[in-house]
């Protein structure tokens, strides 16, 4: 029985949270920006969510005649698929995980690297100069930030002695990784912002520069998949941070999945706060920051962690 329930939960859970986030982010941003946000439809405006979804479903799903049709359709599917696949290895409570893999962490990194294809392919297949520029920016940005993301969690893996995410959570029973792995967390957080194309690293869809960047030509449900895909990405990154750095389901008392969910939601809200606060970095500055500062820092972090463990 559980073999059916868990996968269904892990499939529907993130999608539900992500689509709630479409409304939640707008309300939160409005709160930060001295305005109301969508507050008319239903309680607190929550009715906006089904309304938006219906609108998206019934919009004309137009494929530009000059686009590469197959790739154009494939790109949004990759976004959704890779992000949802990654949830497979996220442990919500002891035993509540789809696949308790010994290479869970590596699988997550591999799948999020695959996600880069979606953006590049979308930009390329649209056959639009703005989309192409967005796709190119995204490829450089994601390639660079994959590296630090991988390196930044190596300290965590070393402390747990495993790539198994359940094991990593259990290794934090005495002290959450956020304390010994603070540098790792900061690098992971920055890389997560870059991976999900959130401000200040939303270069691939920089509105004031590239109109809508890689998804300029997308409309209807395909645009919706990029849109919700971004939120699923944010949810995934927040869930991973909760697992890797904040002790997963463990809490000061009454440990359980509620702690995991609370931490994830707080982290998601921090993404929204960051978006409301910062301006956008420039492409070369972003890459420079990555290779010149974050890369050595991540290596140093790994080195120190190694020394401490072997001491």
């Amino acid at each position, binding site marked *: 029985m559980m073999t059916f329930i868990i996968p269904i939960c892990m499939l529907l859970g993130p999608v539900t949270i992500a689509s709630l986030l479409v409304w939640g982010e707008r309300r939160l941003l409005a709160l930060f*920006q001295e305005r109301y946000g969508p507050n008319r439809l239903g309680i607190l405006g929550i009715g906006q969510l089904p309304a938006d979804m219906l609108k998206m479903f019934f919009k004309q799903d137009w494929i530009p005649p000059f686009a590469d049709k197959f790739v154009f359709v494939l790109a949004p599917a990759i976004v959704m698929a890779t992000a949802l696949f990654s949830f497979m290895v996220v442990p919500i409570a002891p035993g509540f995980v789809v696949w308790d893999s010994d290479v869970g962490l590596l699988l997550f990194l591999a799948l999020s690297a695959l996600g880069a294809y979606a953006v590049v392919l979308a930009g390329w297949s649209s056959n639009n100069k703005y989309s192409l520029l967005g796709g190119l920016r995204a490829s450089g940005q994601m390639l660079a930030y994959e590296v630090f993301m991988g390196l930044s969690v190596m300290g965590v893996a070393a402390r747990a002695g495993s790539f198994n995410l359940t094991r990593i959570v259990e290794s934090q029973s005495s002290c959450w990784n956020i304390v010994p792995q603070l540098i790792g967390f900061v690098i992971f957080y920055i890389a997560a912002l870059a991976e999900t194309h959130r401000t200040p690293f939303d270069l691939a869809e920089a509105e*004031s520069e*590239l109109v809508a960047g890689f998804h300029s030509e997308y409309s209807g449900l395909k645009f919706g998949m990029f849109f919700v895909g971004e939120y699923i990405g944010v949810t995934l990154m927040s869930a991973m941070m909760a697992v890797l750095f904040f002790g997963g389901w463990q809490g000061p008392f009454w440990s359980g999945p509620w702690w995991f969910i609370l931490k994830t939601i707080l982290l998601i809200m921090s993404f929204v706060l960051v978006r409301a606060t910062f*301006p956008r970095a*420039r492409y070369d500055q972003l890459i420079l920051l990555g290779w010149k500062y974050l890369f050595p820092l991540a290596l140093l972090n790994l080195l120190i962690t190694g020394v401490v463990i072997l001491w």
Partner: protein
Amino acid sequence: MNPIDSINTEWVTRESLAGKAAEHEMLYDITAVDETLKTKLKEHEGDFTLVYHFLSLKDGEFSRLKLPIADAQTQVPSLTSEFKNANWYEREVFDMFGLEFEGHPNLCRILMPEYWKGHPLLKTHPARATEMGQYQLSDDKQDWLQSVLQYKPKEEGGDYLYLNLGPQHPGTHGVLRLILKMEGEIIREIIPDIGYHHRGAEKMGERQTWHTYIPYTDRIDYLSGVMNNLAYLLSVEKLAGMEIPARAQTIRVMLCELFRIISHLVWYGTFVQDLGAMSPVFYMFTDRERAFKIIEGITGGRMHPSWFRIGGVAHDLPEGWREAVQEFLDYLPARLDEYDDLVMKNPILKARTQGIGAYNSEEAIEWGVTGPGLRATGFEFDLRKAKPYSGYENFVFDVPTAHRGDCYDRAVVRIEEMRQSLKIIKQCLDNMPSGAYKSDHPLAMPPPKDQTLIHIETLINHFVNTTWGPVMPAGEAFHAIEATKGTNAYYLQSDEGTHSYRTRIRTPSFPHMQMLPLLAVGTTISDLMAILGSMDFVLADLDR
């Protein structure tokens, strides 16, 4: 010396033009006048007069050169080798009057599309669409029109990406089209294509009465409302030879400074938004709304109140204006400080704007840059100080400057200007003179009612003034003010009519946009947005 606007005016010939022009510091404006329908003000037998305005930055003095032109076939010597900013001005004269300039590197239309027939500011060109026959757009014609607008790069080596940015683009704040030649993300060449917002404001001036033209001026720089009225009215009042009562002047100053804050707040928000920050624009529009509350209370309008009148303002200040203004004065400084922390001290913003789009004072003067763009280079020039108008000499305020002339410094100057404007408004509040809010000059006010019922002459005057509008004495007048984006000037010629014979609007955005290729070539498309944002242009101000 022109007795009406006390501007040194000299007639030149084709041969002496270049030499005379080179004596001046900054080329301020070039325009032309079609002389063919003039009756009272005719100064020579030719068909056209070219009018050059120059600005001396030491004392804020303007000077004028006038060149008579026999007919449209006569070639005019180009000033492009003496002044870089002559390029666009001469193109505009060519576009509007069909006058050709000898030695101009790129003489083509600038505001009107290439396919336009005729030259709009000629007196023979119709002023209204109804005079032009029915417009029909067949499919063939549409295709042809689009093909004319298409940019066709010249065949050349190298692997370049040609990007058509605009006329509809979120980063250009309106219908501005930029054609970029790019190598990767680096801009190698940039061609601004303007005119999409051209509404023929100058042509309308020749049709509207002196009075009914006021609302059109509001819509030139549509972010600074009554500030446009002021530039126009100061010229009209010079023509009429009016004295403005002190109270009217102070009310005008107060509203202008409020609009300076309003305009700068919009700039602040959109500038930061161009750099990708999402929230600040909401805060600044909230503040702007509070300023609009005051504008609404005083004028009844918001963005375009058209509230100044020839000789003063439309009404006296309403009850309760002091409290409203005081409340705003108490409210804004703390918010501005908060924005400094949120925006100006942000390291990402600094990295995006410092050292980007920089120019020095010499370049600024060469290209005709005024306002915050000039002051950011460390050159202290403000018409409110250099050549005070409307009673600005009575106010204590500083002229903020910066020294690097980059995007960041332009922002710093504008933010400090808002604080100075608050200071000026405070002084208006404390020292508002009593008295009339409008001049009692016969061209500004109808004759007193008790006399119209006795004297037939005053009754006639009353009738003529209210049905035709005032008739300005023949002559020419020019006045420049320190507007929000730079200096804004109106040059008016009256042929003793109920409307102007020629209305020339010199706006700051025009020369600033002309400078864009100098600033943006070699930078990336992200920097281009920072430069455009920091330039603070308004499309209506650019194209008129």
